[in-house]
């Protein structure tokens, strides 16, 4: 009997299509890109694919401010955006939870920004913040708050701020919706127990509501940290990492190195380093989530 007709082979035969798909879609590209990060591979010189350079790419990246500055900027961007989104989302969720009528409608309306392509959001905010024809400057001048054209997308700090605003506008609702789901699921009894135990409104929120909501916040943060860490489209459309690289973040840098400068080996090395950053963020939030979920079993 050939080996593929043996009963013990059946599970493996049945798994073969899945394994093949996994291999072609995930494993081979992963191994290949990993390999290229150890070569001096340039897109314009196909032969350089076999030019093994060991850890040279990594050594260069890790000793180069051209890499560390965008890296730090990405971490800062992540931190600012996630925190602001969390606070705004929490505020919105708490407000919507208070109203007795139209909750569902509002929840749906809240999702509108998520329905737009990030590229379109980028274009829209690029127009809003345009120094000549943008509505932001127009409004500031009409209200007499500013007398000149503010170069929102040119000044390094303001450009960073503008991009953050666009990102926050687009995705605050992720937090709001998840936190609202948490508020809907929240048992009423512990809140009442806290009131009887002597808490005022703030103490009830601080000691009971917030700890209950944190697992939901961690889910949102885990999802969003991956999104923001790979932010590319909004930045490319709004500033393209400019002016002079002052809003460059990891993925715009990697795309520039890989495609514009065609140094794909170097770009892949950078991509692996930034993947580690993403994994660290996700792992951190996931660990928080698991710790928080351990006690949520007792909520009922």
């Amino acid at each position, binding site marked *: 009997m050939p080996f593929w007709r043996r009963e013990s082979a059946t599970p493996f035969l049945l798994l073969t299509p899945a394994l093949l798909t996994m291999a072609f879609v995930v494993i081979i590209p992963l191994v290949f890109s990993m390999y290229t990060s150890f070569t001096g591979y340039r897109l314009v010189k196909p032969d350089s694919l076999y030019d093994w350079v060991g850890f040279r790419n990594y050594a260069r990246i890790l000793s180069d401010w051209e890499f560390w500055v965008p890296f730090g900027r990405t971490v800062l961007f992540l931190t600012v955006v996630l925190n602001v989104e969390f606070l705004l989302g929490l505020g919105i969720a708490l407000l919507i939870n208070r109203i007795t009528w139209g909750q569902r409608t509002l929840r749906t309306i809240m999702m509108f920004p998520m329905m737009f392509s990030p590229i379109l959001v980028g274009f829209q905010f690029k127009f809003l913040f345009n120094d000549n024809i943008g509505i932001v400057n127009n409004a500031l001048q009409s209200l007499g708050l500013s007398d000149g054209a503010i170069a929102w997308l040119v000044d390094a700090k303001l450009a960073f701020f503008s991009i953050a605003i666009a990102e926050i506008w687009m995705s605050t609702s992720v937090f709001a919706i998840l936190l609202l789901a948490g508020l809907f699921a929240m048992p009423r009894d512990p809140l*009442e*127990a806290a009131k009887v*135990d002597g808490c005022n409104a703030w103490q009830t929120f601080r*000691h009971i509501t917030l*700890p209950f909501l944190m697992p939901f916040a961690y889910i949102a943060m885990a999802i969003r940290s991956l999104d923001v860490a790979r932010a590319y489209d909004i930045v490319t459309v709004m500033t393209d990492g400019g002016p002079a690289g002052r809003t460059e973040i990891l993925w715009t840098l990697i795309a520039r190195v890989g495609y514009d400068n065609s140094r794909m080996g170097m770009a892949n090395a950078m991509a692996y380093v930034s993947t580690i950053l993403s994994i660290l963020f996700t792992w951190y939030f996931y660990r928080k989530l698991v710790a928080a979920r351990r006690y949520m079993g*007792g*909520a009922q």
Partner: protein
Amino acid sequence: MAEITLDKVVKKYGAASVVHGIDLEIAHEEFVVLVGPSGCGKSTTLRMIAGLEDISGGIVRIGDRVVNDLPPRKRNISMVFQNYALYPHMNVRENLGFGLKIAGESPDNISKRVDEAAAVLGLTPLLDRTPAELSGGQRQRVAMGRAIVRRPEVFLFDEPLSNLDAKLRGQMRAEIKKLHQKVRTTVVYVTHDQVEAMTLADRIVVMRDGRIEQVGTPMEAFNHPRTTFVATFIGSPPMNLLPGVIAGGAVRLADGTTVPVPDRLKPHARDGRKVTLGIRPDDISPVGHGLSQDGPGAEVDLTVELAEPLGMESLIYTRLAGQEVLAKLYGPRIVQPGEQLTFRMALDRAHLFDAETGQSLRLD
């Protein structure tokens, strides 16, 4: 001193009124049980005392303070909830100490009092667990510990045992009773279970449709129900109620059977009055198998339809005047369906209610 006074207390949700002007005085250190079927307003009343529901009308006093507009934290009460309402993200120690921490007690003092409460309730080995790691009975004990650790003037219990299984409920009932003897405070306890009400209460408050039907000691409510509602609600199995008309010093039932009117009710039994005869299953038994053989009685021959042996006694389903009647047989005797027996009603323990108002005739 913490007496609680309810003065014409009303609760309305919009136009719908659920508590219609309740008057009640609860003495210092008294254990009062509010009992009634679901929807009778007992929990709402308790929550108004706690401050978790607004009071739509009337006055609630705790001690000598009017508490209508005070938030719960200023009423010096603690409450045990039906679903325990523990804080899921805190361990037992933190759950117990939370109220003290909020009140700004020193950490030493908190840990001392938490340890004391834990010792009283047998929670000491569980102090570092979270609520998720506790069984139902243990969670219930933590909820009680959280209430006693703050040493409030008033304890409020909202159906605290209804999520436990029957055996545990019995144990916890006894623990609550013991706890009240140890920690003397005023207690208001809500339940729909008349057994809990009977066993725990100094005084029972029977409620129905947002009104108080009767206030009294458990034995008063059991022996002298003011209405047919209280008569059927307190006591298990419920009292048999048979409609009839007074004729010549006796109650004539639908099929013509006559039962003499008990002496104590004679003054109220004028001829032609429509009444309801109430008699508990314990007070109608086959001759020779009842609780007591002396005292006035009335005998009637009935056919057994069904018998449920419970060991030392049997519950007998029979039919009198076209209506199902429950009777009890004391003694280990097997009864067969279809068997014809002579039953004796203990008339000194029979009740008469007005057929229209449902009020006991003795209240005329």
